[in-house]
């Protein structure tokens, strides 16, 4: 019996969401009286993996196959399934990302495991019962779900749980190979198009989001400048994406991206129930709207009633004055 944590890497580093998964996995391992091993795939330096010891990981299996630098579900699943077999893993922890969902769902069938995605709590373990809390109804509620099978896969929601760090901890890194065939890469991407320079919306700790209250794309620089001053990612409401001011991948809400940053600043967004669903797990919500009756104020921690074009420049000025 052991816990296996799947580590996603990019640009030589471990993604923050995977540090959360590692921290989560170690806590589950100690609750079960076992150890946590990680399996790392992708473009990563061994140093970054050694440091996973700070999150309580004892050993990291690293598959160096360069074909794995791009995500290919079939190949990733094969590597993780083999790691789970060699480690005799009964609990597998992933992050609730596009990659995590693609891996978790296939792996669950392959291993006959129970899978819970969007998980926001550590498991309650009581004898043979194993229950986790997950977000449902697009952020409007939670449910406690029992994972029935002997093997369990948990995809942890981003920024839902703290990363526990014990300084000085080191993990041993072992090379690992699943002997992948070319056929495992049948759906490998022909091309990857990355947005340059932006902070990833789904990984961001601070998000500045704009709505129709900005009146037009010519005022979008207000959102961008405030985001830049705060080191934040930018997002938008559905109407803004629908009219084409901003691309759809920035649309936050029930049918767009769900975010849970430490701080969400909504500028000129009224706060329709569909938008709230995508942001209400943010730790602190700030609402700036010229309509004092905007429903978003009821879900906010801080509010300013005023026109975005007047209020936001003051915020930018104050943000620039903060010492970093």
């Amino acid at each position: 019996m052991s816990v296996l944590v799947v580590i996603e890497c990019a640009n030589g580093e471990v993604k923050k969401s995977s540090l959360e998964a590692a921290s989560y996995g170690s806590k589950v391992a100690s609750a079960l009286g076992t150890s946590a091993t990680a399996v790392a795939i992708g473009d990563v330096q061994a140093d970054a993996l050694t440091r996973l010891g700070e999150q309580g990981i004892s050993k990291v299996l690293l598959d160096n196959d360069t074909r794995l630098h791009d995500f290919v579900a079939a190949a990733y699943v094969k590597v993780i399934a083999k790691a789970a077999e060699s480690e005799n893993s009964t609990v597998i922890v992933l992050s609730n990302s596009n990659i995590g969902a693609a891996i978790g769902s296939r792996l669950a069938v392959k291993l006959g495991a129970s899978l819970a995605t969007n998980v926001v709590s550590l498991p309650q373990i009581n004898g043979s019962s194993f229950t986790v809390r997950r977000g449902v109804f697009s952020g409007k509620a939670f449910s406690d779900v029992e994972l029935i099978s002997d093997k369990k896969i948990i995809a942890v929601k981003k920024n839902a749980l703290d990363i526990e760090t014990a300084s000085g901890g080191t993990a041993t890194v072992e090379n690992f190979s699943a002997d992948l065939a070319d056929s495992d890469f049948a759906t490998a991407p022909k091309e990857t198009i990355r947005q340059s320079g932006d902070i990833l919306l789904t990984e961001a700790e601070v998000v500045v989001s704009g709505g129709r209250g900005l009146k037009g794309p010519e005022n979008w620089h207000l959102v961008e400048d405030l985001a830049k001053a705060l080191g934040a990612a930018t997002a938008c409401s559905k109407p803004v994406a629908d009219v084409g001011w901003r691309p759809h991948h920035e649309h936050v809400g029930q049918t767009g991206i769900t975010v849970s940053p430490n701080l969400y600043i909504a500028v000129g967004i009224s706060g329709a129930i569909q938008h709230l669903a995508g942001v209400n797990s943010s730790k602190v919500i700030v609402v700036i709207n010229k309509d004092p009756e905007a429903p978003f104020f009821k879900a906010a921690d801080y509010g300013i009633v005023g026109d975005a074009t007047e209020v936001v420049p003051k915020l930018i000025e104050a943000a620039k004055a903060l010492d970093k």
Partner: protein
Amino acid sequence: MKILVCISNVPDTTTKITFSPDGKAFNTAGVQFVINPYDEYALTRAIELKEAQGGTVTVLNVGEADTEPNIRKALAIGADDAIRVNLKPTDAFLVAQQIAHYAKEGGYDLILMGRESIDYNGFQVHGMVGELLGIPTIAPAIKLDVNGSTATLEREIEGGKEVIEAVLPLVVTAQQPMTEPRIPNMRGIMTARTKPLKVVEPVGQDAKTSVQNYELPPAKSGVKMISADSAGDLIKLLRNEAKVL
């Protein structure tokens, strides 16, 4: 080309979610159910592909009889026929098993569905169906074109997108901006009444998870208002009081 589109029946996006006092059940009284918004992208794209290249579009729903109005709506939007697997969809694997079984029976080239349902938010069924059928799943796709036996797709990744070419059969999940969802017209509504809707029995009852109870998130304690004239004070509060900067 034979396309299967899987749809689920979910509360309208404007629904205020409430539960029974013991937290065991979602209150459906007064709730309007709709086709899952993500599934509408899948359905519309399937119909566009059929119109351009010929073929058929079958919709499949795992649900009890109360989902039939939305199945008829899918037929009115332009699907040719429908299958309802008579089962309450309580678990992702349970649903995936049904889809995989009837997909195999029908021999489809393309199995399309939304990325996730807006009620359970599992984002699991696509990969489970792909694994059960032994075919690739491309998720979450934001663009889908088919040329002969090859599909060209764009897959959304954190911070960008990938261009993928894959050979059919495939499972693909849909979301915006794949297409603009259609609404049924009067002619569609009339013809939908006579299109075939086959009700079939479930295969197996093998659920891997069990929902114990539901809970609403804690209410916010109240909003602290700052005057627009001293808006800069907000930044200080965020650093010193909320400690998020």
